């Protein structure tokens, strides 16, 4: 045990002190924060766009007052020949010119938009929508439907989902939140197993090609060396995971407080004032949409809290360790059996296959968390860690989790035993090209 710990300690310290580890650990949350920041910035930034003036030539006369100016667009109705307007447009690069022909009711495709440069899809979409809606309204009112009915018919549907808990009480849940959490957890696990499993293999290969293995192995039992290495790398993985968690939380909170919501609200206040000056109606509209956004955010936060976060966290750690132990011992056996990266390729492929398959099964399971595919793939130890993590946010019966965990433990004890048999022979074998037949012989070698 002392030796396992010594090996673990060395493995941990060497890896944690590596520049690449420090850079990766620090950079990843920064990248996430930067990503987050860019999204917020983009969202806030859209309010700061330069004001655009859109000139409208409405030959049909149907659209008077239908294009409403807002914070960053002003609609300007002009008359006169289109050719003159086009000529003037060239001097004002920001502006657009919309031409609505007289026979728009019969020929809805006759709308033309001109710009000095290109027209963004958003702008085009917006103008099309206004025209479309207006034409629809006109046609509906012609059919005898009043304006009031039309307005009332424009309803937003946003279903709230509830899951019944054991006491029969309803609990607000959000499929979206579970989906996001499940997918994130499964994907993180997948990445961790792949990266750290390969890390173990690299480490073993390094010891073998360095030839330090013979010195070490004359002081430490091969099994202890293998376990020390595997556990050391696992500790590195957990450290990284923990640091990412702390840093991501810290940095995003900081970003939010510094640049996010404060600025968001400030900008909104400015906008509200501007809007009030321009048009009291507009202000009301804007406030309504803001409170809608806030509501959506709140509901999402609430339902995220309704997720079994503690359970997800504990299961994540368990399935990370279980899945990692299962695969990394196999990776260690491969590292011990080969002498270079090329040779390793042919053996790593069959191991990576179930890992890659498991992320695929996880995607399928997330859409049907209680399906039989989801059930079976979350029982088989080779796919269970990733698939089960995708299912847990949706709620999985305790017995299923327990059974899957037991099977996973059985699985990794099995692969570790197998790997250790191959490892102890492989590390001292040089100059011999190995194949599966050879490997299976090693399993049964004595001493």
């Amino acid at each position, binding site marked *: 045990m002392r*030796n396992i710990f*010594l*090996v673990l300690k*060395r493995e941990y310290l*060497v890896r944690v002190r590596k520049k690449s580890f420090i850079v990766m650990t620090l950079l990843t949350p920064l990248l996430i924060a930067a990503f987050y920041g860019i999204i917020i910035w983009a969202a806030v930034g859209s309010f700061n766009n330069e004001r655009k003036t859109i000139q409208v030539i409405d030959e049909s006369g149907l659209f008077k007052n239908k294009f409403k100016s807002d914070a960053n667009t002003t609609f300007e109705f002009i008359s006169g020949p289109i050719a003159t307007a086009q000529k003037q447009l060239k001097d004002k690069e920001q502006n657009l010119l919309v031409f609505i022909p007289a026979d728009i009711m019969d020929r809805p495709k006759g709308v033309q938009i001109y710009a000095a440069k290109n027209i963004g899809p958003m702008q085009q979409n917006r103008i099309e929508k206004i025209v479309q809606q207006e034409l629809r309204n006109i046609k509906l009112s012609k059919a005898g439907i009043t304006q009031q009915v039309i307005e009332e018919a424009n309803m937003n549907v946003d279903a709230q989902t509830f899951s019944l808990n054991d006491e029969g009480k309803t609990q607000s849940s959000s499929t979206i939140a579970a989906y996001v959490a499940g997918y994130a957890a499964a994907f993180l696990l997948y990445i961790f197993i792949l990266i750290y499993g390969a890390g173990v293999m690299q480490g073993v290969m390094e*010891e073998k090609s*360095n*030839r*330090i*293995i*013979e*010195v*070490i*192995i*004359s*002081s*430490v*039992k091969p099994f202890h060396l293998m376990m020390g290495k595997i556990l050391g790398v696992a500790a590195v993985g957990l450290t990284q995971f923990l640091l990412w968690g702390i840093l991501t939380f810290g940095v995003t909170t900081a970003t939010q407080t510094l640049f996010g919501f404060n600025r968001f609200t400030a900008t909104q206040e400015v906008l509200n004032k501007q809007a009030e000056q321009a048009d009291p109606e507009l202000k009301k509209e804007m406030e309504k949409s803001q409170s809608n956004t806030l509501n959506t955010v709140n509901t999402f936060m609430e339902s995220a809290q309704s997720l079994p976060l503690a359970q997800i966290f504990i299961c994540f750690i368990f399935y990370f360790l279980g899945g990692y132990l299962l695969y990394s011992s196999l990776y260690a056996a491969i590292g011990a059996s080969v002498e270079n990266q090329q040779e390793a390729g042919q053996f790593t492929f069959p191991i990576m296959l179930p890992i890659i398959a498991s992320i695929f099964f996880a995607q399928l399971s997330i859409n049907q968390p209680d399906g039989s595919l989801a059930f079976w793939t979350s029982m088989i130890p080779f796919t269970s860690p990733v698939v089960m993590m995708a299912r847990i946010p949706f709620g999985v019966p305790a017995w299923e989790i327990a059974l899957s965990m037991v099977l996973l433990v059985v699985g990794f004890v099995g692969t570790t035993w197998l790997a250790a048999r191959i490892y102890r022979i492989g590390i*001292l074998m040089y100059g011999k090209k190995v194949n599966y037949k050879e490997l299976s*012989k090693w399993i049964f070698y*004595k*001493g």
Partner: protein
Amino acid sequence: MPNILEVHDVVKQYASHRALDGVSLNVPKGSIFGLLGPNGAGKTSLIRIITQITAPDEGYVLLDGERLRPEHIQHIGYLPEERGLYKKMKVGEQLLYLAQLKGLSEREAMDKLKIWFKKFDIKTWWTKSIEDLSKGMQQKIQFVATVMHEPKLIILDEPFSGFDPINANLIKDEILELRDKGTTIIFSTHRMESVEELCDHIALIHKSQVILKGSKKEVKDQFKEHSYSVRYHGTLESLPADFEIISHKIDDEQVNKANIRLIGNASVNALVGNLISQVELVSFHENIPSFNDIFIKAVGGEIPEEISSLR
């Protein structure tokens, strides 16, 4: 002299290859023991059994009279032929790690390392990475790693390969000093001149079996041909039938040189008497076979009868 290590009828079978076939040998305490043999003879297999890297299929090994146990690892120091250290690790950290694996506490390891670093005058290396050291420097570190836990038994596989003559001498002196302190050294090598110089006991393994073993004198006695080298002035007319002149030539200094073998129970004194009566002697000495000759003879198959009976 009690034996620190006894190997009894050890057999090691790999798939289709029998690496060791009933190997037995004794290593006396405080000796420098040469483990000789051509490549692939089974030396490394035997060393791996002694260092408990592998276990024998049959037979057993006693260290200080006890069957090998995992705790014995800390009493053995092993320098493998293929040297290796963690390239990116600092010298000091690496040695501390290896010492702790041998059962020393961090403090003990630190104390012992300080002595060695002072002795080899390499204090400034402590914080250097292994990859920044020259090959010879790395070998020194590896030697320190082998002996720092003060093992009772040190196994050195080709210890001088990769050393320049100065450092090779330094290591040789260390080996002798360790022997004088009571440490036993098993010395596996092809370089017969170092066997000649250092070893007091040897065992020769060939084709998975021990074909020759014993003290330096015993082994050499077995290979003696009872021949003598004579240098003289004058002419040697003839000798009685008991003596056979194997070769004769005149060397660079215009001195006659002859090799003469004693046949049957002829005495050395009788030879000398015969010589003195005919020529003026310059020198007279017995031809003692070198380990190099013995090695080639034994492995080449020309094993004298009394030796082959040892098998």
